């Protein structure tokens, strides 16, 4: 098949475009993959389901140095219905892990609040592991105006 001049131009433009967009896209993907791997390490290879866990974080954080974040898991916290631990990840941080909470029967309810640093606008993820081995996930995007890492 003979390529016309017009077809040739669109093709080259397309390839060049891919190359330009491709690079940062790969980088962003790497961080997301890191987080996914860390989630799998935490759950022991189990795919987490949505529900039970609620992650509360502001939609827009003006200062990435201190972003309030709360987690709450729907559980009776007695007998078999217990939350073992909850882990928080920030996908876009140099080190995605934020904190791991471990609860006990004396916790009364599986709720915790803390403040974290966010480098840029990104997804914040919370994963809960129950005593019976089931895992639950919640995700929220936080827009960050001023990043909280480095300086």
């Amino acid at each position, binding site marked *: 098949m003979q390529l016309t001049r017009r077809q040739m131009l669109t093709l080259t433009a397309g390839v060049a475009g891919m190359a330009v967009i491709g690079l940062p896209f790969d980088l962003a993907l790497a961080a997301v993959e890191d987080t996914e791997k860390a989630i799998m390490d935490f759950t022991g290879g189990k795919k987490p389901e949505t529900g039970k866990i609620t992650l509360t974080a502001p939609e827009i954080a003006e200062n990435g*140095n*201190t*972003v309030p974040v*709360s987690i709450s898991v729907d559980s009776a916290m007695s007998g078999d219905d217990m939350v073992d631990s909850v882990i928080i990840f*920030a996908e876009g*941080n*140099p*080190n995605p*892990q*934020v*904190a*791991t*909470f*471990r*609860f*006990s*029967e*004396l*916790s*009364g*309810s599986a*709720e*915790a*609040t*803390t*403040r*974290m*640093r*966010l480098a840029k606008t990104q997804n914040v993820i919370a994963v809960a592991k129950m005593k019976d081995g089931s895992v639950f996930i919640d995700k929220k995007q936080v827009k960050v105006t001023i990043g*909280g*890492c*480095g*300086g």
Partner: protein
Amino acid sequence: MANPKPRIKIPKTASAGEVITIKTLISHEMESGQRKDKDGNPIPRQIINKFTCAFNGTTVFECDLDPAISANPYFEFNAKVPESGSFKFTWVDDDGSVYESEQAIEVK
């Protein structure tokens, strides 16, 4: 660095089996290890890496902290109070120092 000062907010009394909310804050830089000084050398990481709360010797709540926790780490969590006793709070620094605080609670 100045000696980290823990602050704890906890009710003085509770009824047996009541679930109370505890708020804790400790003054600490939480140097993430990502920042650089004026000459461009990285500032070594120094954070509090572990926080625990125990009631009469039984662990209530534990947290592993990573550098993404803000300076002056703040925690708010719940605890069930089965009897009179005391809550003991422990923070462990990267350099091995341990900061402790204890608060009594009375069951009425």
